[in-house]
């Protein structure tokens, strides 16, 4: 996840995919209604801008397709392509290492398993790690970041120094050590990736809460006798949501890359479970003779992560989030 989590200073106005168009009457009305203070308009405005971003929409469409493929795999993949994990040792000899064909669109591997079918089922692990790890990171990061920003002082220093300790560790090595503690297996892998992503989220949450903390409506809420928790949950978080959504989307892509990397190193999903990273790891020894074993799983990782990156970029522009350190 490391790379993706790095801050990126591209600002919304500078995206070549979004030439600035003169505001239409509709937009002018939007701006006007924003001024009148309806909370809905920010989001409908953002949706409108997101819809106009072609690359983001391509990303969203691809994510939708992958989700459909992952959810519906049982209905068609085994019948059409063959099982992703069960192989018959009697027919293995004639089925192994077949090049791509009509019957096996992405070829077969050393066990005679259909590569396309394994990629289809592998999407489940990739999506699961993206969603579960990001949820874990968001839950820890939201709590830590909110506490740090709201209470400030000692708690702030404590949380931020703890985040520094986590960030000072080399990311992959830390993940490897955590997996060594928890034991191998994909659930532990998800947990390790999620736990390690919290400091970045916490920093984002903290800085965006700090930016709304001094607003009058917070004072107003406090004057009305609202409790700390109510102020945090009802007044601060919703207004600090935009950067969190952008980082959350980006970190789904990052978690998918991390899973691929750790499975590639042999620490994540293991055979017979199909994982794109583990498929690449197995392909490494045979990639010269059987390049399809390497090309298709890699392309699956690239396109899926790219979809989340493009959507994240689009969201950043639509919500007008400035990324900063």
């Amino acid at each position: 996840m490391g790379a993706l989590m790095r801050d990126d200073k591209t600002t919304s106005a500078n995206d070549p995919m979004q030439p600035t168009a003169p505001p239409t009457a509709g937009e002018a009305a939007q701006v006007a209604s924003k001024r009148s203070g309806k909370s809905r308009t920010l989001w409908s405005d953002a949706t409108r801008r997101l819809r106009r971003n072609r690359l983001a929409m391509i990303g969203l469409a691809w994510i939708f397709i992958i989700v459909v493929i992952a959810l519906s795999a049982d209905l068609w993949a085994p019948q059409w392509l063959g099982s992703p994990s069960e192989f018959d040792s009697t027919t293995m000899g004639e089925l192994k290492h077949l090049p791509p064909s009509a019957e096996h669109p992405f070829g077969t591997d050393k066990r005679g398993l259909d590569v396309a079918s394994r990629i289809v089922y592998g999407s489940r692990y990739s999506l699961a790690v993206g969603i579960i790890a990001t949820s874990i990171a968001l839950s820890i990061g939201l709590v830590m970041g909110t506490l740090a920003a709201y209470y400030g002082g000692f708690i702030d220093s404590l949380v931020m120094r703890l985040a520094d300790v986590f960030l000072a560790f080399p990311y992959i090595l830390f993940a490897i050590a955590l997996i060594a503690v928890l034991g191998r297996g994909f659930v532990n892998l998800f947990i390790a990736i999620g736990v390690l992503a919290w400091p970045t989220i916490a920093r984002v949450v903290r800085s965006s809460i700090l930016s709304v903390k001094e607003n009058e409506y917070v004072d107003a809420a406090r004057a009305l006798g609202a409790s700390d928790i109510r102020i945090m949950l009802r007044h601060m978080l919703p207004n600090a949501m935009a950067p969190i959504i952008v980082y959350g989307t980006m970190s789904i892509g990052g978690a998918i890359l991390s899973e691929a990397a750790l499975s590639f190193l042999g620490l994540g999903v293991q055979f017979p479970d199909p994982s794109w990273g583990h498929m690449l790891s197995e392909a490494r020894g045979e990639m010269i003779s059987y390049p399809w074993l390497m090309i298709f799983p890699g392309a699956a990782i690239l396109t899926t992560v790219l979809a989340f990156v493009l959507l994240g970029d689009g969201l950043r522009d639509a919500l007008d989030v400035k990324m900063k350190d």
Partner: protein
Amino acid sequence: MGKYILRRAFQMIPVFLGVTLLLFILTTVIPGDPVAIRAGERALSPAARAAFVEKYNLDAPLHEQYFTYLGGLLSGDLGESYRQNREVSQIYLDLYPNTARLALAAIFVEVIIGIAAGIISAIKRYSLLDVLVTLSTSILVSLPVFWLGMLMQVFFGIKFKEWGLPYLPISGMGDPPDLIHLVMPAITLASVSTAYVARIMRSQLLEVMGQDYIRTAIAKGLTDGAVVRRHALKNALIPVVTFIGLDLGAMMSGAILTETIFNWPGVGYAIFAAIGQRDWPVVMGGVVLIVIVVMVINLLVDISYALLDPRIRYERRAV
């Protein structure tokens, strides 16, 4: 300025202590007995086992082991490997130059290609070239680096050789180490950062180009090239240089994936292997070294940033 540096330096101490403590806790909770793993298949005699425990002081209470380790650290002693019968410091003295070579080569690629691509796409904004740069940066960030390395090995290493073209070596550092072995590992390691450098360069240059003093420079009749070179670039480069500095720190902590793909004998792979072998002195020593290098580089980056842009000294206080 002196105060700022001191404060930043003092902030490193708790982080460093936190890292060593966390690391020490990890080594004690990770299952697997280093003594048994070292012995391998053969059962270890009780006497040999006792000697091992005695030698590495494994009987002492954990907090005592931790303080003994910290004490050793202060006098520059990283301990001895469980498996290799060598001083940990000696192991890393051998390996660190390899990691540094790879990191510097990758930074070189990142600086040349990233900055050039960023400047071109900012100057030719909305052109086809700009769209291409933006799209390829998105692709580069989404690319699993180990896959990029494998693709290059097959293409530039194997296929080029088959086609009778000049080809690149696919693994190792060469004997003696040479530049040609550095090409593919450096590009692989640099890929993601190059994309970020290009993006930051582009957005910074565009932002600076919109400012008043640039309009003045244009109004006074300077050519576009002179405006960019003499006026815009200087200010736009500050965040880029910062990013590159921090990235150098990150690369100095080893690149497990790149090292694995290209059989590059660096510190990242060494620590990875040592975790598998439960060779804790090697793991501890490696991570401690990495963390020190990264923290010192980050501090230098912060200081140079504060020197380049005096506003930072005061703004960063909150962080």
